[in-house]
């Protein structure tokens, strides 16, 4: 029974240390140049310039084959680069989805012309993607989507509506999950396909949706008789569900699933100084014990992914625990930080606390809700 989950211990190989040093050097240079000062969350930034500089270092698509612009580095090396960037609050938002999800998907299931056309541009930090899965009537129940592509001369005609699409207004392409066959009552997962949609195509309208924090990150995307060339189908028509679910381990276990409130912790520590009072120390220690545990778990999953193992269950564990922690951090810190406000409050901390409190509701929704994740874990326990 204790074998339900596997979290093999992992020691990062030595090449990761050297790489970590390089990334820290790069971040220090970037900081010194004053180009950015630290974002709270992978989703909160969009800086094509930064993505370009990162691409020039070879740190986007770094695990992919050289012939597609990659550097053939290990998945663990990629882990080190991304965790360093996230911890520093680097503005990774522009290329994030392409690097984590869309590129690997195209590499694995796409055809060679897609790979040659798109992957090198992603690695240079010039080509950004968004994920078109959710629809107004389809959230957790993703298989119920209605956006539809029908075959036409030379390709597909796409009609429908996507919603909550992060960065659609700033991305070049969307990977759109759509129906290419009508619903088979016996198997709802049949007949779903993934198309690479050029967001400049005629018939697409993109409307940003302001979130409760006042920012415009996600969008509604409307497709009205949009033509998608036939060679933009990823894999075979009908393979969409299999492809979508095959990448969940990567999407759910990474450091972005427990570091979204990290900047708040750092700024709070800056404020309390090097000899904090016991309550402040306790708050920091509590958070730190969780962060340290989650990083171990997340790294362990990365190690198993590197070995090609299936880790969807473990990834769900990491994401549920990690996103809960992301929500708990502002709750822990506000209780101590709000005791008697002093005039020399660090503005950075106030800003990070405000950002985190306001954005916390999204942490346990985006990328699969808490309830859906716990359902996956319950299935792993043999309960369903």
């Amino acid at each position, binding site marked *: 029974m204790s074998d339900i989950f596997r979290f093999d211990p992992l020691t990062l190989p030595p090449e990761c240390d050297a790489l970590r040093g390089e990334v820290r050097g790069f971040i220090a240079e970037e900081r010194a140049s004053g180009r950015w000062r630290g974002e709270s969350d992978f989703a909160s930034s969009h800086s094509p310039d930064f993505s370009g500089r990162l691409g020039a270092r070879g740190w986007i698509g770094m695990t992919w084959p050289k012939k597609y612009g990659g550097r053939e580095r290990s998945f663990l090396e990629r882990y080190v680069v991304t965790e360093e960037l996230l911890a520093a609050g680097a503005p990774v938002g522009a290329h994030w989805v392409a690097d984590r999800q869309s590129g690997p998907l195209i590499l694995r299931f796409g055809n060679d012309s897609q790979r040659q056309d798109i992957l090198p541009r992603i690695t240079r930090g010039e080509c950004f993607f968004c994920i078109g899965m959710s629809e107004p009537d389809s959230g957790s129940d993703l298989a119920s989507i209605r956006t539809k592509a029908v075959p036409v001369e030379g390709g597909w005609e796409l009609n429908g509506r996507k919603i909550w699409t992060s960065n659609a207004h700033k991305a070049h392409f969307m990977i759109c999950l759509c129906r290419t066959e009508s619903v088979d009552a016996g198997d709802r997962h049949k007949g779903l396909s993934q198309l690479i949609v050029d967001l400049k195509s005629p018939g697409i309208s993109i409307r940003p949706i302001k979130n409760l924090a006042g920012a415009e990150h996600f969008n509604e995307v409307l497709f009205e008789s949009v033509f998608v060339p036939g060679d933009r189908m990823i894999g075979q028509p009908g393979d969409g569900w299999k492809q979508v679910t095959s990448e969940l381990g990567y999407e759910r276990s990474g450091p972005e699933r427990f570091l979204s409130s990290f900047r708040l912790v750092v700024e709070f520590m800056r404020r309390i100084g*090097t000899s904090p009072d016991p309550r402040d120390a306790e708050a*920091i220690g509590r958070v730190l014990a969780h962060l340290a545990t989650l990083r*171990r*778990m997340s790294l362990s999953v990365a190690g198993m992914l590197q070995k090609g193992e299936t880790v969807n269950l473990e990834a769900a564990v990491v994401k549920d625990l990690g996103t809960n922690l992301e929500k708990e951090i502002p709750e822990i810190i506000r209780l101590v930080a709000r005791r008697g406000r002093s005039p020399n409050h660090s503005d950075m901390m106030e800003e990070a606390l405000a950002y985190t409190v306001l954005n916390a509701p999204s942490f346990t929704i985006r990328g699969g809700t808490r309830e859906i994740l716990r359902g996956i874990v319950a299935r792993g*326990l043999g309960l369903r």
Partner: protein
Amino acid sequence: MSDSLVQEVAGKLFADLVPPKLVNDAEAGDFPAALWQAVNDAGFPDALAAAETPGSLAGVPDAAAILREAGRHAAPLPLAETMLARWLLAGAGITAPDAPLTIAPAERAGGLLLHRAGKGWRLAGRAAGLPWGKQSSGIVAIVDGRVALLAPKAADLRPGRSLAGEPRDDLSVDAEVEVKPAAAGVDAALVYRLGALSRAVMMAGALEAVLVLTVQYANDRVQFGRPIGKFQAIQQQLALLAENVAAAGVVASAAVEAASGQGDLAFAVAVAKARVGEAAGKVAEIAHQVHGAIGFTHEHRLHHLTRRLWSWRDEFGVESEWQQELGRLAAARGADGLWPLLTGW
């Protein structure tokens, strides 16, 4: 033996020899002498002391594997205490009595002093909550880098019990003792950390057992015509329970690794005791909710595990104590030292 083999052997021994009745009898005051004999014959109490270099922590992985199984089966013995005591005595070159032992102090604020008396030494002072004090054959104290062996008869022990019904006695002493310098690098702070590590590992084992029991119960208990495990409300709670068990297991193992020389022991133990202690509270709460009234009975064995979780999480430093230590340790490195600290352990 490899850790997993040690774990297998220990798991089998405890599974065979620790029925619920034995736990109940021990809690009622009967020391399980036959169980102790079997455990002693298997060499378990010497797992730490077996290391060739005095004071070496090379035995930690084996000791931890045994203690995890002891925790899983709620084995009512001073096993962690005897392991630590024998390791201290071996490091100091004092012959260990071949019997259950305990260590003092088991709390951070040590109220024990050693002072010279003629040619020898006297140990004087108080220590609260001494595990298995009266049922041990020797109390091993570590004070100012010195190890002392005290006969329980020479001390005043006021009996007490933990939430799990395990002996936790208050010690008051002023007696002559055998004293030797501790092995290099060994001091009271290290022993306290190892005590905390032992509790983290025992809790990790007990937590895994609670998960098994609770999932099993959810599959067996039928209400409204189906197993309660089919209700989504129960599934969601069990998922949270399982996630906490997984986290506790990972972090306890990481601390064991660090203690046996592959990392920062102070940091890793503080993280483990704080995190596993939190998991213990959450898991026990959910497990009891899922078990309903039957789990609240003395008859059902769930409480053998949950009462141990509730007592072990408080021993060798409650979560808040380790959280404070962690917070101070992190703050001392400054805000920008936090990330290197996290990636460096």
